């Protein structure tokens, strides 16, 4: 290896009955291919403290990437969404590292569902601040359960098909506005210090109500 050359390449083959190899890498950027072909592998402990990590891939014998465990997933209990006019309801607040996978529930607002605003703070930054219906409808790439115009019959309308991301399942149209929605939407939020998920009642006269469910996980 030439001195001063920016790239370092080292390799080794170890054939031993018992192995204990501590490896410390401080070079940057670095790619670390590890090929383990023993019949039985008990434990691989990796402690990665790099500020930036592009990917960690673990390939099973089938050469398919396998998921690396370590996530605790909890299903929150039913959240009461009752919110007076111009007030907020917090669905979930997590400090630590983790992810939010799912948001589901039903909301009723007598003044119309467009008054329900959804706010998502990821690592203390406001990353989404718009009507809830925009998130579950536009964000999911799903067409409205059914478009309405004034004069259409009041009643329940259901989505004909829901994609893998979920979205709006059904809604109640009272003849001039949508007052109740059922939704089940897959979120893909990763956070490193905190996440705050809340709904705001933007209306000045009526309270909103309903139930919410959030599925989230934390990383140790």
């Amino acid at each position: 290896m030439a001195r001063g050359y920016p790239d370092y390449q080292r390799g080794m083959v170890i054939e031993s009955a018992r192995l204990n190899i501590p490896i410390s890498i401080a070079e940057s950027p670095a790619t670390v291919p590890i090929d383990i072909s023993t019949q039985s592998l008990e434990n691989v402990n990796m402690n990665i403290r790099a500020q930036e990590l592009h990917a960690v891939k673990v390939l099973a014998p089938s050469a398919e990437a396998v998921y690396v465990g370590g996530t605790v997933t909890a299903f929150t209990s039913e959240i009461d969404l009752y919110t007076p006019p111009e007030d907020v309801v917090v669905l979930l607040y997590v400090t630590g590292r983790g992810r939010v996978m799912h948001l589901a529930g039903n909301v009723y607002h007598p003044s119309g569902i467009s008054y329900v605003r959804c706010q998502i703070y990821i690592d203390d930054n406001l990353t989404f601040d718009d009507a809830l219906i925009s998130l579950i409808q536009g964000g999911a790439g799903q067409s409205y359960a059914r478009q309405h115009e004034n004069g259409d019959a009041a009643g329940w309308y259901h989505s004909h098909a829901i994609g893998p991301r979920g979205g709006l399942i059904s809604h109640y149209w009272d003849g001039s506005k949508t007052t109740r929605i059922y939704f089940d939407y897959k979120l893909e939020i990763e956070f490193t210090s905190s996440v705050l998920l809340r709904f705001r009642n933007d209306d000045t006269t009526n309270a909103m109500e309903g139930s919410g469910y959030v599925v989230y996980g934390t990383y140790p």
Partner: protein
Amino acid sequence: MSSMELTHRIYAIAWSNDKYTVYMLVRNPKGEVVARRIVTIDGKFLESREKILEFVMRELKKRKLRVES
């Protein structure tokens, strides 16, 4: 090993529906992680991270858990 020798380290706190969920790693005296522990505590949303941590630490102390800060 008695449970008094174990220390807990909080790695995440979640709040939802008037309930805090505290996620902790449990370490033995050697410093090895031996378990993960999840505790739920009833309480109102306290808005700021500092207030939440203070409240959670107080509640965990009441439950006689040794928690690293």
